[in-house]
């Protein structure tokens, strides 16, 4: 697919698509072929499947449980703060937050 095709298919503007494709190709998730055509690699497909599986875990197993905490009157911000701390401790790096 060319960048123009990707732009049509996703609606993402070109100035965002270019750096995204650069990152994806450098990670080996996408490959650039002759004629400026981009295609997904087997690694990219695996990462996509992982992402879908991760989202399924959150939607089906995690979020329904966390909704119980909201029903108890605890705020989303407090729950997210707790999750960030615990996840960070569990995997040893900051998640979804910029350093500093």
């Amino acid at each position, binding site marked *: 697919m060319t960048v123009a095709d990707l732009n049509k298919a996703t609606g993402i503007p070109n100035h965002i698509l270019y750096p995204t494709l650069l990152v994806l190709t450098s990670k080996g998730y996408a490959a650039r072929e002759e004629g400026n055509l981009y295609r997904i690699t087997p690694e990219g497909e695996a*990462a996509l499947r*992982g*992402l879908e*599986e*991760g*989202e399924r*875990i*959150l*939607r089906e*197993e*995690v*979020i329904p*449980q*966390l*909704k*119980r*905490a*909201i*029903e*108890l*009157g*605890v*705020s*989303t911000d*407090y*729950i*997210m703060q*707790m*999750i*960030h701390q*615990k*996840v960070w401790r*569990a*995997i040893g790096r900051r*998640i*979804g937050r910029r350093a500093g």
Partner: protein
Amino acid sequence: MSEKGGRPLRPSDYAVLNALRFLGPMSYQEIKRLTNLPRGKLYDTLLRLRDSGLISFELRGRSKIYHLTEAGRVALEKGVIVSGFPQVERKLSTEELIKVLTPSDAAVIKALTEGPKSTQEIKEATGLKGLHVNLALQRLRSFGLVASERKGVMQYHSLTEEGKAIAESAVKAVEAKLEAERIVEGVLDRIVEAVRLGVSLGVIKRELKRYELELKERKNQETAKN
């Protein structure tokens, strides 16, 4: 120094007041880093200065930002805590109070809802260590939720009217937070698994925010009906 002239400032008072005077309002952690005072001493100093009206604080998120009051400025110039200066301490709202209460504060409040108790009785009722009970009592006294009275060698503590008013909601809120923590602990492995698969935690935040708003709207509609 006579009582009339006021109590002289201690070295730790100078350290904290000067830090706030020259560097402006700051959090507990920043004061600790700048003054290099041990945690226990800094906590006592902040309580003492606050009770004397030399500093006050405001809540920013979950942390307190301390700043120098006019009385604090005068005290620094004179080197004494002058009595009779108007206290500028701002009363915390119930919501703010509930935010800053810790689980041990809630346990002490719960124990005191049955009536006045000595420190030892609170220790037995809550199962907390003596140090934690004393710190919780100190905090609750500074918020005006608990009053202490010495009878012989024993000190008895009871809830003030304000303490009684917020006791139930405070205990409920802290228990809810503890339950929320247990829930998060229960699904933590799955969250970590999802994060390892490359999912952003923003997905959880968006869903929970939406649900929180939905619950609020439902509650508002119910109160409007009633």
